[in-house]
């Protein structure tokens, strides 16, 4: 936790922008450089900055541990879920074409976006958990 007014003010102002930038990288990943891994790290970095500036108690209130734990699993489940949808529709695992049978390119884009969203969710929450553990939170 930092006592510097400058750091806290600037950091507080940056916090939402880092999140938005993370979201941009996330959504952009399907057509250009970016994607779930990078976006996940950015989102996690926003919360790490928050914890450094305002103390981890406040961050924990903003983003409770149980939510992070849940997000870890939900991200992977989203990924697997897209795959299982293919199985359920009688296609191969992770066959995107079931998402929009009429338009393969749209199906591909939608599938990748969903999968990347899963990756982003898991990466962000795993990195947050790692930082929390290194910070010496007893469990």
């Amino acid at each position: 936790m930092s006592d510097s007014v400058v750091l806290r003010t600037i950091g507080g102002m940056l916090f939402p922008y880092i999140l938005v930038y993370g979201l941009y990288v996330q959504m952009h990943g399907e057509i250009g450089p970016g994607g779930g891994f990078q976006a996940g790290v950015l989102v996690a970095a926003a919360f790490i900055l928050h914890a450094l500036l305002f103390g981890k108690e406040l961050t924990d209130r903003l983003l409770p541990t149980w939510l992070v734990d849940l997000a870890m699993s939900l991200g992977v489940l989203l990924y697997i879920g897209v795959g299982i949808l293919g199985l359920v529709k009688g296609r191969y695992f992770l066959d995107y074409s079931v998402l929009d049978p009429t338009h393969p390119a749209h199906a591909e884009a939608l599938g990748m976006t969903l999968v990347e969203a899963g990756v982003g969710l898991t990466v962000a929450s795993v990195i947050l958990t790692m930082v929390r553990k290194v910070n010496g939170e007893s469990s």
Partner: protein
Amino acid sequence: MKPDPSMLPVLIVLLPLVGGVLAPILGRGIFGWLLALITTGLTTFVCASQLLLIQAQNALTPGFSVSYPLGGWPAPHGIELKIDLLSALLATLVSGMGFMVTLFSRQGVDDEIPSDRRRFFWSLWLLAITGLLGILITGDAFNVYVLLEISSLTIYGLIAMGRQRTKQALTAALNYLVLGSVGASFILIAIGLLYAKTGTLNMADIHAKLLLAPVDATVLTARAFLLAGVGLKMALFPLHLWMPAAYSTAPSAVAALLAATATKVGIYMGMRFIFSVFAVPGDEMLSGGNVLIIGSCCGAAIFFGSLGAARQPSLSLLLAYSSVAQIGYIVVGMTVGHIDAMTGSILHMVFHALMKGGLFLCAGILIYRLGTTRLEDLAGLGQRMPWVSAAIVVGGLGMIGIPGTAGFVSKFYLLKGLILSGHPVLAGMVLLGSVLAAIYVWRFVEVAYLRPASDTPLRNGLPFEKFLPVLILLGASILLGIQPGVVVDLARDAAQQLMGVTP
């Protein structure tokens, strides 16, 4: 893109993966164990059905294997799952052992893992099984590496969770992490070199391209890196140093799972790469000098592993060193390139998993009731815990290879293959290993039956659900020792398919 009627191949990895991801959410209290039990049970069912399907097909068209393109991308550009007899046999073994050990470990895990960690324990548990099964069924070389990392990283975590019982678990896990990562990097380098050479990652495709090109320095280097990496992963002497500490300090359920499955999967990787990827007629990987080197490693493993086992102060360590020796048997069979030796090798993988799994479960019962497996605390065990010590003796007889136990059948095929292929010295080592095994098994018998009972207090009763898996595993090893026909046929077909020999 024709839809595939069979989704069995992908279910083999998908089921434990979903279970592993659900465990942190749903796995509080008893539910984690239930989830793991149901997941491993279903996976075993799927693996067994896949095995039966492939066996039936194999009778019609020898050399049959199932291919499943993930995402519908056809091989060699997409990632394919490729299951032949050997993969299906070992997948059934791994998932079946996973089920048995899960059944065993409810109270053990309650004892040894703090309650807020249990849901993560079950998550790691299922993900480790996912990784091991994935290695067995994938047909993509890079996928092997990724799944190897999944299984290894989860296993490091599982071993470290033994720290509740003994702090040394942390050191053991760190040791294994360092050595295991070195091994995995070697395997990655080998795969990278192969990719540089052939421009493809699909194993069958790599093999096809290697057949066309002469064996040059790149391929030789890849072979060397692969052998060293796989050797570390399967704990082949002298690369076994991580294993005894890891097995003896891990939570008892984890030790049983690892001893029964993890090293077997390492050996499978070796077999797969040597016989399905690197096998170039006229320039076999296992010829001349290589056989000499690996053969002596195996001989040394059998000799020093058994001797080491005879000197250990605790049953867990004794069993771990005995595993070093048993891995020697398995690898020696695959090294000489004779069909009978290979059959023996595959048989020994299966039988050793049953016996050693059962023995480590017995050690788990000892930890549960006595809190220790130190041999001096086991004095008079024959009177105090007659069933468990009888089970340990039965497993031990299997380790020696007494006729009537499964260990005899696999050693018989090993010896036959070694002698027919002209390796009497190695055959002698296998026989010597049996004598040495008798020594370390006798140590337990002497302590348990010929000494006055020690006064270490007994906790808890003998829960039936703990003894049931022991009964099933060791019972199976006896049953298969008397009636080995079915498994021997399977193993021989698998060996023929692997070595590309037509019957």
